[in-house]
């Protein structure tokens, strides 16, 4: 028993606090809805619904670990979705054009964010808040204020198709991006530098890290993934909607924070972010299936976010 306590309070608990919270919520929903929620088809459905937010959260994770924040991703989703849909009408451009446009527009916006933060020395909150507004306006200008319809079947298949007839491509993208992000964050020099500048920018600079360059890269990653997410959302909803993606940045931030990444930067694990994104999708799906009114859903979601992080923080405190 003592040994078990040690395990519960020790290293394992510290690392796995959020995993346990996730497992408990999953178990509760499975008991409440054994025939609908717990079906394998629904679990795959949840994975699919977590994907777009999960991809945004991967980018957000780099930014938050580096000590920043990116509020512009929701607007980037809208702009790149509108642009992608505009270039995806039948018989106009090959499929690669909207794909490349969406990703590179995201990358470019991320680069601007990074420049303002790294060289302009403007706080990330302000730069990306301004960018959020500018890009939302750009999405409305490009689309003339109304949704863009009439995309090709191939464009719809980007997010709608399946691998081996079973696994939604959205899930495949999410897993691939997660593996890449995990590799970059944990196995490369760049990844260690992201942690270093988030932990202590001054000592990072003293140890020879080009802080500005790393910062710009981080926002470019976030912007690029947001551009890709915009493409996926436009494909999934078969239209580019200029008002889409509102508050997506907050869901992405929530996933990262639930996953145990510190808002002050310098720490956090990739798998925590994955769990965070899955947890948000699980709650939404479970409450829809249990037919809980949308008003109560908001209250429950908010409360679960706070409680999850509280348990995580308490779990970490015990060991230090």
């Amino acid at each position: 028993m003592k040994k078990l306590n040690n395990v519960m309070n020790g290293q394992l608990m510290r690392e796995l606090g959020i995993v346990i919270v996730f497992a408990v919520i999953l178990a509760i929903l499975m008991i409440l809805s054994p025939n609908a929620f717990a079906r394998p088809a629904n679990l795959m459905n949840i994975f699919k619904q977590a994907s777009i937010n999960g991809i945004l959260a991967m980018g957000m994770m780099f930014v938050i670990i580096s000590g920043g924040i990116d509020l512009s991703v929701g607007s980037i989703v809208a702009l790149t979705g509108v642009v992608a849909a505009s270039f995806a009408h039948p018989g106009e451009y090959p499929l690669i054009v909207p794909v490349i446009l969406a990703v590179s527009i995201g990358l470019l916006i991320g680069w601007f964010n990074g420049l303002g933060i790294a060289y302009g020395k403007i706080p990330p909150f302000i730069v990306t808040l301004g960018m959020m507004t500018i890009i939302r306006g750009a999405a409305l200008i490009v689309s003339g204020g109304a949704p863009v319809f009439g995309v090709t079947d191939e464009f719809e298949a980007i997010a709608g198709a399946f691998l081996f007839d079973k696994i939604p491509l959205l899930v495949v993208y999410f897993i691939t991006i997660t593996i890449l992000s995990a590799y970059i964050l944990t196995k490369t020099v760049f990844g260690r530098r992201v942690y270093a500048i988030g932990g202590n920018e001054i000592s990072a600079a003293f140890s020879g890290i080009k802080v500005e360059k790393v910062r710009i890269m981080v926002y470019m990653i976030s912007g690029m993934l947001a551009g890709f997410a915009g493409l996926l959302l436009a494909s999934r909803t078969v239209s580019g909607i200029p008002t889409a993606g509102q508050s997506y940045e907050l869901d992405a931030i929530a996933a990262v924070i639930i996953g145990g990444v510190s808002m002050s930067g310098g720490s956090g694990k990739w798998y925590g972010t994955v769990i965070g994104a899955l947890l948000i999708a699980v709650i939404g799906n479970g409450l829809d299936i249990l037919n809980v009114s949308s008003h109560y859903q908001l209250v429950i979601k908010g409360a679960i976010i706070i409680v999850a992080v509280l348990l995580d923080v308490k779990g970490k405190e015990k060991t230090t």
Partner: protein
Amino acid sequence: MRKVVLIVLVIMLVMSTAVFAGGKKESDVDKYALMMSHMTNSFTITLSNAVKAAAEELGVELVVFDGGQDVSKQISQVESAINQGYAGILIEPASVDGIKPAVTAANKAGVPLVTINQRITNQELAKAFVGVEHVEGGEIEMKYAVKAIGGKGKIAFLLGPLGSDAQIGRTKGYYNVLKDYPEIEVVYEQSANWRTDEALKLAENWLQTGVELSAIVANNDGMAMGALKAVEDAKKLDQIKIFGLDATADALAAVAEGRLSATVSQSTEAQGLAAMEALVKLVNGEEVPAEIMVGHTLITKENVADFQ
């Protein structure tokens, strides 16, 4: 160097506002203002374009203001328009309660004000209202849905933001019709806030429950298109029929292809025309009815070609 750059930037900014504000000559024709609650969806764009076209036809000048879904901003816009000597004001209110101060100010200044699409709480303060009965729209949509599924089965509602005028009216229309059909059971009734992505997610989750739905009835076409995507992905379009309202371009295309069972037009263009005509009459001292209602039209595969 930095200061010079900064000064140049400021000058450019100031000049750009002058460019946007300028270019409008003072003229003899009456100036009218159209205050839109926002300009971010098909409905508001269509409506403002219809009013613009009507103004051109009537030979008056029209300026469109975008309220950005913010009622305090809309109030300021009305106040400035009054001060600038606009002859009349058309308003598509951002809030049916909050807009009252603007209406009072227009009355005090003797500037005729007509509300469009949404009735405000103190409608008696405005000179006229032009719009549709949302209840009627809901009834038309639901009557057709009931017929299409043979008067029985389990159905789901996708609602607009709870508490909005259109959501309340259309949903009331649904229940007015359902009173006579005890064999129809409403199993789900949730808000997807007019949004396609939210409706898609919600419908996907409903389909996971194994409940055999016969129809999904949506308060607008944006949400109907989200539900349609979910049902098509699940290959259940032969079992579940989808119904929308608004007659947006993609919904009309889906009706023509036989994927969406029906949509309902709230005659947006007719609303814009009737409102502009009424306001010009008021400014010229003529009388108009306090309520000018425009009808809804059901659009199915049979008559969709007339609307495309």
